[in-house]
């Protein structure tokens, strides 16, 4: 079963690459703009660290490491599960019907139905930052942690996007919340008060997608690795639950206004 899912991903990757090559110019423009976008954030932090040198034991190098994890995770989530941010749109455009008539797992299929070219820029940027911040022997762990992050943020996007099942038009909300996750992921967790830290490890799990992986890479602690693993599993399960419950509502037609 896992194999057939992987095979399907490969098929979609082929199609996505073919589409990207068909629109080479756009593909390059979008990938590069993402690289530029991330570079500007690094510029922001550079300015900040010029002024303040150290932020609760974090240095500029730690910040680069954070971005290495953050952008690469968003990158792989976006290239493989390109529809993760668009589930609300897929629902409101009635495109969900297409996936419903096909024999594959609806959530999985919907997610892989598209690949984001912006995300590809993230992948590249993340890798570049990783080569600056980490040593070659840290890379296997880096890839593993990024995979977990990618699952977390995809699950989050699914949960948030599934609001569309309940709210009708959740496009703006889900987009904002997803941007929120990304924004907060860009700050080291240590600067926050305990209350904030809790928020950032639960409601908006920004802590899990960037700070914790970075700290695990600089100083591995089994306890935190297991917590990260556990959280990944938890949010994954919640995402599936929320989506399928919403799907049942969709199929019972309570959302007529968005479908007809």
């Amino acid at each position: 079963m896992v194999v057939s899912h992987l095979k399907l991903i490969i098929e979609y990757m082929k199609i996505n690459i073919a589409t990207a090559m068909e629109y080479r110019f756009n593909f390059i423009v979008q990938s590069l703009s993402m690289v530029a976008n991330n570079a500007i954030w690094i510029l922001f932090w550079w300015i900040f660290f010029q002024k303040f040198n150290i932020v609760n034991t974090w240095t500029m190098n730690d910040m680069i490491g954070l971005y290495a994890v953050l952008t690469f995770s968003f990158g792989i989530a976006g290239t493989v599960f390109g529809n993760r941010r668009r589930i609300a749109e897929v629902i409101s455009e009635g495109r969900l019907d297409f996936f419903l008539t096909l024999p594959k797992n609806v959530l999985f299929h919907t997610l892989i139905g598209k690949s984001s070219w912006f995300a590809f820029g993230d992948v590249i940027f993340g890798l570049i930052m990783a080569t600056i911040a980490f040593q070659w022997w840290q890379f296997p762990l880096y890839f593993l942690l990024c995979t977990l992050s990618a699952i977390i943020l995809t699950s989050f996007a699914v949960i948030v996007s599934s609001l569309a099942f309940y709210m009708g038009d959740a496009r703006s909300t889900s987009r904002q919340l997803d941007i929120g996750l990304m924004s907060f992921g860009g700050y080291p967790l240590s600067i926050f008060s305990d209350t904030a830290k809790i928020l950032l490890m639960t409601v908006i799990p920004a802590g899990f997608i960037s700070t914790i992986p970075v700290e695990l890479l600089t100083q591995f602690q089994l306890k935190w690795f297991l917590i990260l693993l556990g959280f990944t599993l938890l949010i994954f399960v919640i995402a599936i639950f929320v989506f399928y419950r919403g799907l049942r509502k969709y199929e019972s037609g309570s959302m007529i206004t968005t479908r007809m």
Partner: protein
Amino acid sequence: MGLIKYLHIGRISFKNNLAYKTDFLVGSLFIALIIFILINLWQTMYADRAVIEGFTITMMIWYLVMTESIVTSPGRVIEQMGDEIRSGDIAQKLNKPYNYVLFHYAESMAKSAQRFVLTFLFGGIVTLLLIGPLTFNLNHFFPILLVVILALTLHFTLMALISVFALWLEDSKSMHFIYQKVVFVLGGMLLPLDIFPDWLASIGKSLPFSFIAYFPAKLFVGFNWNDFLILIAKQIGWILIFVACTIIVYRISFKRISINGG
């Protein structure tokens, strides 16, 4: 004159937004959350000092509330206009280029007005509860309002100008992205330019973006009639420059669109 129709456009846009009420509210609440996070960041930085580059923590946070409110309220203008331009839809919509821009200006300002108020309200409440009030003289309310309106106008004008380049790049999302980030950093939305290394701060101050976020918000937290007059003069100056550019660029592009048939 036909200008009254733009008022009606504004009214309908206002009503339209109310239709997406939950979505709308959540968007504004979101900013409150960002302010909350930023408060945490700055409380850490202010742990061992009271003033940073002339800003107390109170001033700093209220500064950020103002910049966030201004910069985020218009929304995705570049994407909307850029997509319309690329698809050639506008060739059918309106005849004269400046009508098209005015139409969007009316829509955008109506939308921005609502969102600005809500964003500032929610961000302000969070700040009031956690940091405290800003010493603000009510006499300065109308001047600041004027400055904000000019800031939003300049913001819109720049976005309208950039939207045209969607034609060449065949993509509006990327440009929205880059413009947004440039304003975030060089416009001083995330960080007052005073914190920047001097050379970078001078660059920022000489660019139009700082007149959207940095200067208006700085005036807000530290009002001074002299600065006010200089600011609106410069804002108007930048607006006029970019309005002129926009008109020219749109005229040229419209010719191209009409020739190509959209």
